[in-house]
């Protein structure tokens, strides 16, 4: 992995690595992520050739065995020249999970970060337009968090009723 040498030279100690089958991962814990993650992704993009943000998603590790941080934002990067892939995981914690936005690096991160915010409540600082994207704007909860009940808190029945006579 030539990119690991570049990362080690610039961010030694700020990240760990792991692998699952052919998935190469770079992990940045919640303590370091707010300061390191943007520079690390910028380095991967500009110096290591990972020019495409193929995926950006969220994970809630609540009650997960051996998990130390709760929220995770996964950046799936692709090198369009070599076809190489790397998954960068940045962690965040309650009460206010927050990570820097990468819309300055990849325009396409805009809606994906909005979706992560909508579902998990991770705020992205520097995002140009951080609003809910799927749920209604008056919705207050974050439905993909693991402590959110499957049937919700009653939001889905909170609508006016149209009776036959008045319609």
């Amino acid at each position: 992995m030539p990119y690991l040498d570049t990362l080690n030279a610039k961010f030694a100690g700020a990240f760990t690595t792991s692998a699952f089958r052919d998935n190469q991962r770079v992990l940045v814990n919640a303590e370091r992520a707010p300061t390191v993650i943007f520079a690390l992704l910028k380095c991967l993009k500009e110096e290591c050739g990972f020019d495409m943000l193929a995926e950006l998603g969220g994970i809630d590790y609540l009650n997960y065995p051996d998990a130390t941080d709760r929220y995770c934002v996964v950046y799936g990067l692709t090198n369009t020249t070599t076809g190489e892939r790397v998954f960068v995981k940045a962690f965040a914690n309650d009460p206010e999970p927050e990570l820097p936005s990468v819309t300055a690096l990849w325009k396409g991160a805009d809606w994906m970060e909005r979706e992560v915010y909508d579902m998990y409540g991770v705020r992205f600082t520097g995002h140009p337009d951080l609003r809910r994207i799927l749920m209604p704007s008056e919705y207050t909860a974050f439905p993909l968090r693991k402590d959110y009940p499957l049937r919700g808190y009653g939001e889905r029945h909170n609508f006016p009723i149209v009776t036959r006579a008045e319609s």
Partner: protein
Amino acid sequence: MVTKLDALANLLRKYSLWPMPFATACCGIELMATASSRYDIARFGAEAMRFSPRQCDVMIVAGRVVMKMVPVMQRIWLQMPEPKWCISMGACASSGGVFDTYCTVQGIDRFIPVDVYIPGCPPRPEQLIRAILDLQEKVQKTGTIDAREFASRTAYEGPTALARELSPEEAIVAPGDYRTATRLRSLPVVN
């Protein structure tokens, strides 16, 4: 009391029900199949699908309805001129179906009046034709020329609150025990 003039109006209306296709999911495919040549809903006078609610008599809600679509659905329903009827097509529109989730409405009859329900996931076109025939019978039996039969129905006609919304403490939280990979076994009893 249905007079002869009402009966005449009903006869004319029931054989020219113009549907408003509110198709949000796979039931909409069956709705399209019902309108096309193999099943041919035109045989029963209901082939004139219009995408303007101002021209329609019967709204066919085909598919799951999520929270964001409820205000849209209610607005379309209110825009339809009287007399009008509503068919709830499929398990999702009638009860939420398998989508017992945070965003899906558990049956459209909680928010708008429904005349005919169609079970099935999705229902076959024959079932939709049956529903049209049932609706024709309902129009013939209850309809009036000036649609005055609706004025007395001021109460909520939807289902009683079947599953009360659970409090956060007793609500089912997914997933359960990661270490044994099982769902929590002690689920709360729903009234």
